[in-house]
């Protein structure tokens, strides 16, 4: 009994594991909160695009020995600019433009990584490396999360109105465009932060699945946020914790857990579950 308890507590003896748990909690919670807006606004594909588009930036940052967040930022900015440009200059539909631009960026990242395998760790970028998170990275993550959660907590009602009915928001004098822009910035910052936790391929899971799950459980926005944030945070911690015992990729564990939660809710939710509907 005592021995098994000791086994369960074992991960907590390692500093890097504690940092991983805290980081997963934060990324999961902020991602969960944001996912409510992303799912309702129809930005899921955009989140996916963004997380892939920052890959070449991170690769370049490794090559130049810069903090990877700077590379990610410029790469994301460049990708957004490219999307706007292609969209304005062609008659292609938006999903096509996003598809073309984000694969291009992702390909550039893969190419860079394959050219300099010794200096760019492709596996870290694509799958994340939460166990290797440095104390300074964690501080940075805590600052980003505190700002994001603080802003979202204070302004979620305004953001709800802006995403629900932008015209009314503007009609009562809310700075609708500025609020949407801030939401995009938060989305980008969280995508960059989540890159290290779950990897580029799974960022979109953290930014979409908790919101999709919560949406099936409630018809009230406030509750949706609470549920989504709770799902994001708890799957983050449990996933990171479980990955210690499975010896599996942390990102994989977290997102798999989120998917399990989604499927359970989809089947059994009281009002919107497919088994409960009449």
């Amino acid at each position, binding site marked *: 009994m005592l021995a098994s308890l000791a086994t369960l507590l074992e991960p907590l003896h390692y500093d890097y594991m504690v940092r991983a748990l805290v980081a997963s909690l934060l990324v999961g919670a902020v991602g969960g909160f944001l996912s409510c807006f992303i799912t309702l606004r129809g930005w899921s594909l955009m989140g996916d695009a963004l997380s892939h588009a920052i890959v070449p930036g991170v690769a370049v940052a490794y090559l130049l020995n810069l903090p990877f967040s700077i590379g990610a930022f410029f790469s994301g900015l460049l990708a957004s600019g490219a999307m706007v440009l292609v969209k304005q200059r062609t008659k292609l539909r938006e999903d096509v433009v996003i598809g073309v631009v984000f694969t291009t960026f992702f390909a550039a990242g893969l190419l860079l990584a394959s050219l300099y395998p010794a200096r760019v760790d492709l596996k870290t970028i694509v799958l994340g490396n939460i166990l290797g998170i440095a104390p300074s990275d964690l501080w940075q993550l805590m600052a980003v999360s505190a700002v994001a959660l603080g802003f979202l907590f204070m302004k979620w009602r*305004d953001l709800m109105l802006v995403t*629900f*009915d932008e*015209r*009314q928001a503007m009609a009562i004098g809310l700075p609708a465009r500025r609020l949407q822009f801030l939401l995009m910035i938060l989305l980008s910052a969280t995508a960059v932060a989540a890159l290290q936790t779950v990897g580029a391929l799974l960022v979109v899971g953290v930014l979409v699945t908790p919101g999709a799950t919560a949406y099936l459980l409630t018809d*009230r*926005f406030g*509750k949706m946020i609470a549920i989504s944030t709770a799902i994001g945070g708890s799957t983050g911690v449990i996933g990171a914790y479980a990955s210690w015992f499975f010896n599996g990729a942390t990102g994989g564990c977290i997102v798999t857990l989120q998917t399990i939660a989604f499927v359970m809710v989809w089947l059994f939710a009281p009002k919107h579950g497919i088994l409960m509907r009449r």
Partner: protein
Amino acid sequence: MNRTSLEVKNVSVRYPGGHQALRDASFELRGGTIAGLVGVNGSGKSTLFKAIMGFLKPTSGSVLINGQPVTTAQKAGLVAYVPQAEEVDWDYPVSVWDVVMMGRYGHMNFLRIPREADKRAVEEALNRVAMWDYRDRQIGELSGGQKKRVFLARALAQGGQLILLDEPFTGVDVKTEESIIDLMRQLRDDGALLLVSTHNLGSVPEFCDEVVLINRTVLAYGATEGVFTLENLSEAFGGVLRHFHFESSTVQSHDGRNVQLLTDDERPLVFGKDGHLEYKDRSGREELVKKRAEEVGP
């Protein structure tokens, strides 16, 4: 007490692509009226609507609400907006109560936490549109008419003085249309200025006190009787309308004059023999009916 006013002065809008949507549009309206903004698709109607709501800046000219710029009036919560049904995401996780509460944001503090007064205003507004019993429903679970009433309740709760309605009658049945018109009249009688964007010609004389007729500019504005003439409408709508003459119909004696009917496939607009407007709803217009009877004679 200040009467609400809306002044549109020489507004021109040219889109970045070079398309001139509006040229030198001017009109003026005061509170206590229901005004129709009437024009075909592409007439610049929605552009003008957007300019009044401050969504786009006119290339030249200005829009003043109560003598102030649009943004100032908006910050004071004077402008309320009732969206088109197609614009709303009905699957959004908000209840009837939540939507009406959105009208109170301007009255709330920074965190938008509702106070007692806000809750009272929401309750009052919901009672007034007979939607109080539905307050906990998710908005997608309502009928077409109920959906409209919820957004009208939001404008009510806000206490908006200038209420903009975008095509309020698309996709609602006749009975609902009448109940919406009834609500709009109540708001008008409270002193509000209602500006209704519509292309539904036939219903305009039924509920609009005044009309602003648009085709790339303001062609005419003023009391419906004066503006809704055959000449003005032909100019505004061009070849879009079906035009029926009843010269040899059985509904009238043959005296050289005729009843004319204009329709854009929705509710028809009927002109009497003297080119005057015919009303379906004659209550409150007894004087007019009597006058016409005298003209026609025994």
